[in-house]
């Protein structure tokens, strides 16, 4: 059970949060310009890696804010949290 440091509320139990999958996938600004393949790439393709992963989490039973998390999936350690719109910390590229 993670202890997640919500950027707005501080450390809270994982049960207050819901996970929203891979972070930094930007919805295309002009979907109509995209081919089926390009749209499918945005719509369906997600990474599932062993190692450092960028994820979206929502403090759904708290402040309801979405934010980003850097997590090492090999040991579940959360390395960093940062707000939506902020750039991922460079040391975890």
């Amino acid at each position: 059970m993670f202890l997640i440091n919500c950027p707005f509320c501080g450390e809270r139990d994982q049960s207050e949060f819901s996970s929203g999958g891979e972070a930094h996938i930007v919805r295309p600004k002009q979907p109509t310009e995209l081919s089926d393949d390009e749209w499918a790439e945005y719509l369906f393709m997600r990474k599932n890696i062993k190692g450092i992963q960028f994820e979206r989490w929502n403090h759904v039973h708290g402040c309801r804010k979405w934010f980003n998390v850097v997590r090492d999936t090999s040991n579940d350690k959360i390395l960093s949290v940062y707000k939506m719109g902020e750039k991922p910390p460079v040391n975890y590229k």
Partner: protein
Amino acid sequence: MPNYRIHKTEYIDETKRVSFKYDGKTYFGYEGDTLASALLANGIHLVGRSFKYHRPRGIVSCGAEEPNAICQIGSKKDLTEPNVRATELELYEGLEASSQNCWPNVKFDIGGINNFISPLIPAGFYYKTFMWPKSFWKKVYEPLIRLSAGLGKSPTEPDPDIYDHKYVHYDVLVIGGGVSGIIAAKMAAKNNFKTLLVDDKKILGGSTIYQNNESIKIDDKLSSEWLKNEIQEIKKLSNLSIKTRTSIAAYHGYNFLLAKENLTDHLPEEKKENKIRQRLWKIRAKKVVIATGSIERPLVFNNNDRPGILLSNSINKYLDYYGVTCGENIILFTNNDSAYETSISLHKKGIKNIIVDLRKSASSELIKQAESLGIKIYFNHVVTNTFGYRKINSLEIMKLSEDGNTTVGNKIKLSCDCLGMSGGWTPMVHMHTQSGGKLDFRDEDQVFLPKENSEDQISVGSCNGDFDLENIIDKTVNKINKFLDIDNQDYQDTNIICSKENDKRNIWLLPNKIPLGKTKCFIDFQNDSTAKDIKLALKEGFRSIEHVKRYTTTGMATDQGKLSNMHALGIIADTAGVKMGTLGTTTFRPPFTPLTFGTLVGRNVGKFFEVVRKTSMHEWHVKNNAEFENVGQWKRPWYYPKNGENMHDAVQRESKAARDSAGILDASTLGKIDIQGSDASEFLNRVYTNAWSKLAIGKCRYGLMLNEDGMVYDDGVTTRISENHYLMTTTTGGAANVLSKLEDYLQTEWPELDVYLTSVTDHYSTASICGPNSKKILNKLFPNLDLSDENFPHMSFKEDKLENINCRIMRISFTGEQSYEINIESKYGHSLWKMCIEAGKEFNLTPYGTETMHLLRAEKGFIIVGQDTDGTMTPSDLQMDWIVSKKKFDFIGKRSLYRSDTVREDRKQLVGLLTDDPKEILEEGAQIVSNVKSKPIDMLGHVTSSYFSPNLNKSIALAVVRSGKTMKGQKLIIPMENKNINVTVSDTIFLDKENKRLNA
């Protein structure tokens, strides 16, 4: 009656005699006993039958690792518990226990025959035998296995006990109250860490607390005396909480641990009443110290499972802690020094004993002490066989060859009534591995140890492979100082004398002249697997430890292989000729010892099992005999039976009344989201398929929401309250998800939009009145409101007051009738409802439930998201192309509507179905085909909604059918179990296609 209680100890209160029943017979013990120690005091070793061969089995250990002494406690239908370890169960007045794994009784049972046919029950027996024929499984094999295995009985009635949950936060959690745990807790608490120390036993002290050997001393005191003093010290520390009778069940990531505290299991019946039985502690600790100790290993030799064969250290504990000797003529069989402590203790109490030691020689102080006491020691000898059916009565030993691979010389037969085994010690690394820690293998004494200690978790003491007292104390002190970044000097000058040494001669499977196939060298006592089974599995090609484990069932019983896993691994490594450390171990999974469901569930039973949401009108529905339907967490009236009506009759009456005169529905559960902000219109444009910018203030519009994959996600009516203020309604079940989805887009994709979302579902109660007389009823309630179609047309909104209370009234319709939804602040919902009912009396205003609502909307062909759709339907599949804006640049899911898959002509599409026999009602979910003769039958789709319409006097249905759009008028077949039903594809709208009734 024999009495094996041979001396007094401070842990047994001989002034408090306790009577208990075991297998129907009454015995006596004392306060302080466990069930196991009390049985042994009465000379009872035989406590069960083995799982597969039904061999007699006795008490083996004194703790959580016990594989044999598994009991059924109590016999009441609601208060009986299986799989309780007699070694952990504290004795109390009136305790009733029975041996579990034997039918009809422990001394004579039918399954014992398996012992003689055991050559027929090899590893994988169940997989090989009970596979074929298939029909035999349910009727023959399973009942047979269940009957003869009899792994305890579950209670058949609800558990009347009270269980509790509690969350706590600590700086430091110390697991285990032995010598290292006590030192760690003291150091932490004295240095301002808020500390919790838990131990599964009744008292602290671990195995040191009954240590009384003169050659093991701390500060010139017996180690037990020294430790008692330490315990007194730590009890004074204000920073330290101590929880005894508390065991850690699971160690999850981020130092989140579950502990079970036993509160009343040791109390007599009358003192248990109305008290919390067990509490589940949910612990978050910044740092965790694991000090769980180690357990002694058995030895693997022929017939090592007879009653009277125990772990050597357990014999010592029964003697020095409980005052009970396990026999009068004891043999200790060992490969290391620790059995000598037991031997000396027994000798001092006048119990005759001899030692058989695998080692060629040994010379520690402890051994010299034994020798000087005149205890006979057979070095370099091995036990090759044991005898005695219900209890051991003798054994044979032989000399070991130089390399230890075979036996040499002649058999020596020794008589005994008890045998102690000591195969060395296995560190309890369960907590470390549960937390995600890795293990290392130490070759010299063949143990797995915690590989690394992270910054927030550490193992100390014998669970970390430090076995002698000097090592334990020194290392623990150093490690804790470093771990907590403190400089505690309390143990700086502690003087420790420990004459035990660590050398041992490890042989996993002991040699024997008898071929292995003819021996019974048990590895897993509870699941009855032998060395032979392991070897057979290897011979049959199994290599992975996880596979061997499952194939032979080694380590898969309720003790999870606490005594057997290491031996299984060792024999696999030896047989396969690989190093044991390279094999890895099986996974240790929580719980460490079995937990009752009650503990896990806590207070969430009965009406607290699940959250229930009720509308403000709920009481009225109950009073008026509504049957309820669960919709998400909501209780919604399903229908209101009158005068003994069944559901069908009630729904027919309600549906007819709503169209003939007036009906009223509690619509409070519909999700309501308040949307405000200067970009609210733009936001709606992006989330719904249709256009919203031009919706006038005071008007309502139906919207369809898609997922980004183009599939219908939710629908509902949204009202423009003012320029920058909308009220969105969602489906009852979808409300929370819709809000989450909208928040997601708003916060992450479109943060530039000035929009605020608030869930107001619970803020308003809603009464929906429909039918030709609805306007008249509204007029009575709101006499000042101009209800004319010109002033208040369909799809518009007005505000008015009902006795000074503000109401929002939407003229919208889900039934096709003229219809008004009155919204009022929740607390007035009940009054509003009653006023509506009162005003509607003269118009036969009929309350209707969800079933009638579904029927009425189906007559009009309105979809229900989640019933007529299933996450694979696009608006076009639903024949709702009209609601998809062609002009809008973008909205959620737009691009997906012309992916190659979504534009296929042969997708499943929504159609209406009419049965050839108008009285025939289709079953929802029924398959639809065009030809029943072809094989395999081509499935075209299925029925999604089906009703008998009292207003049309015929059966109607909605269905999704492949290429259904082009099939109007076509005949199809619904094949049912005993008949085929003929149907014709129709339009989805069955009633009032021209929408005349909306303004009637």
